[in-house]
């Protein structure tokens, strides 16, 4: 009897493992099919290579440049003011490393790597979603077949960013601070805002200290008495510092990634003014919101979901997501939709909320898959809100 129960449990466990692996795989395939159909509807070319090239829009070209040629020194060739320094190195380095083994065009390798990263991000999300299958299916659909799935399947930093963010939060959930620190270091080399995840680590440590009965005042002493935790905190921004050192040695300016923003026309201002300007950019014809309105709505939705995370006592994730939205918002609304949907804790929270009722879950799933086609057409066509 006992043996039978063990066998049954093992069989059930294997089925769950297969399901967890199969669900994102299914959405990889459906996403490819939908996006390819969208590509085929606007392009005369055919084939996977042409599809990958067509989806390589906006910042994708910068990442290809970094992956193939590295970073420029100063002065920038061709009398340009705009250098590649604003784009962080980890993902283009990873693609370059893979290309050195598999000699295929960069965009092909990057597309496949991005799909693999997003697939892996789904697997890492399973324990983070508390093994909630409905939320898991919706999350996988969103990343791999959803309305913004092109962001997670072409050469942008989002696929690796989402994967590493999920790894950090999974490590924190398991109180594996060193693993969280190493993942954070990689995250801070992927995008500048990745460095903010260190606050989530410190908050998690603080919570653990409080759970053990420690007072708030004794936290610094508690932390200083644990060298592993100190290493975890100090290693978290190592990716950013490594990039700063690289820029200092090549350009002479460690903060070149910030200073280059001037050439991209980014100016610091009041985030509330940017939000208001975006919201008030009403369309002159038709009812569909304009690009600045979509961007402002994305920022507001992102901040609202951060508040929901905080309300659910996920303070670290809430602070991380809020900072990841507010920092770029200080300069303007550009790329805001992409920045918000690239925040894994927010999209996971959205998946959980949308799984609350079966009807809403089904409607969301259908909406995700249906919208994927139209947003991919808009992305290929260069629709500004999706930049």
């Amino acid at each position, binding site marked *: 009897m006992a043996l039978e129960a063990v066998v049954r449990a093992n069989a059930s466990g294997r089925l769950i493992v297969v399901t967890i692996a199969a669900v994102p795989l299914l959405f990889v395939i459906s996403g490819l099919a939908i996006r390819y159909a969208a590509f085929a509807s606007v392009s005369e070319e055919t084939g996977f290579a042409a599809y990958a090239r067509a989806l390589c829009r906006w910042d994708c070209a910068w990442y290809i440049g970094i992956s193939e040629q590295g970073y420029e020194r100063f002065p920038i060739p061709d009398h340009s003011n705009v250098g590649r320094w604003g784009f962080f190195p980890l993902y283009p380095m990873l693609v370059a490393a893979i290309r050195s083994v598999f000699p295929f065009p960069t965009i092909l390798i990057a597309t496949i790597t991005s799909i693999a990263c997003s697939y892996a991000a789904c697997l890492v999300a399973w324990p983070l979603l508390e093994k909630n299958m409905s939320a898991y299916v919706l999350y996988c659909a969103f990343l791999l077949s959803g309305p913004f799935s092109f962001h997670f399947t072409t050469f942008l930093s989002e696929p690796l960013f989402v994967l590493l963010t999920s790894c950090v939060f999974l490590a924190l959930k398991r109180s594996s601070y060193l693993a969280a620190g190493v993942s954070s270091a990689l995250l801070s080399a992927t995008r500048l805002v990745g460095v903010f995840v260190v606050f989530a680590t410190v908050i998690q440590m603080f919570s653990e200290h409080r759970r053990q009965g420690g007072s708030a005042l004794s936290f610094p002493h508690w932390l200083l008495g644990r060298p592993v935790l100190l*290493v975890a905190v100090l290693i978290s921004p190592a990716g950013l510092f490594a990039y700063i050192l690289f820029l200092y040695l090549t350009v002479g300016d460690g903060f070149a990634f910030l200073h280059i923003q001037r050439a991209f026309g980014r100016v610091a201002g009041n985030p509330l003014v940017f939000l208001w300007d975006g919201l008030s950019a009403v369309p002159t014809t038709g009812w569909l919101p304009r690009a600045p309105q979509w961007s402002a709505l994305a920022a507001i939705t992102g901040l609202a979901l951060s508040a929901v995370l905080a309300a659910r006592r996920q303070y670290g994730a809430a602070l991380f997501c809020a900072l990841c939205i507010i920092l770029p918002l200080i300069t303007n609304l550009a790329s805001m939709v992409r920045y918000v949907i690239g925040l894994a804790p927010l999209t996971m929270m959205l998946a959980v909320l949308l799984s609350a009722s079966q009807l809403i879950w089904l409607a969301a799933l259908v909406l995700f898959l249906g919208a994927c086609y139209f947003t991919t057409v808009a992305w290929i066509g260069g629709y500004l809100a999706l930049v």
Partner: protein
Amino acid sequence: MPWSDVPGPYRRAASLGGYALAAVLAGSEIVILALALNPDVNADYRAYYIDRTTTCLNRDAVGSYTLGQTVSFRNDGAKQAAGIKVCGWSGPVADGTHSLGETSRLRVKIPPLSDGLAATLQMAAVIRPPQITQRVVISVNGVRAHAVTLSGKEPRTVSFVIPPAALGKADTLEIAFDYLDGISPTPAASNIYKRSIKLVSFRLDAI
């Protein structure tokens, strides 16, 4: 094996190793931060990217030029004009080369001069009511040479004699255009996107 089961000396060694690693990380990060706060860059880089005191990033561009030759800044003269433009220009397009930002510069190599030089420029103002005029201050090799107020959409010919103090024994001529009334595309836009004039042609004559 639980951490508590590790023998004391090993635990102490691991702990010391952890502190040493933490110290190395902290030290490295402080050093890197100090380096980043003291950039090792030239004056042009600093002015454009760090201090933001100019919208025109100076470059080592010097165009070849023959006195008396008219250089078109429309599409038809793109090749020659490209060598002369240093910074603060976009285009060219059909109606000329548009200025970008608050300053633009041209730089040409000139032969040894026995006499003075006169410059003749064709320029038009970029207008967006209520801004219907554009004031432009023109300097040559750092010496103020001329000031003009442009109005109307049609190009206007602007001629002036280059002050002898600007020439000296210089073998290059750098002509800077400072715009006092640049128009931003939007209120929140960066000043690098300000529009002021369209340069149509450029000519230097010995006098």
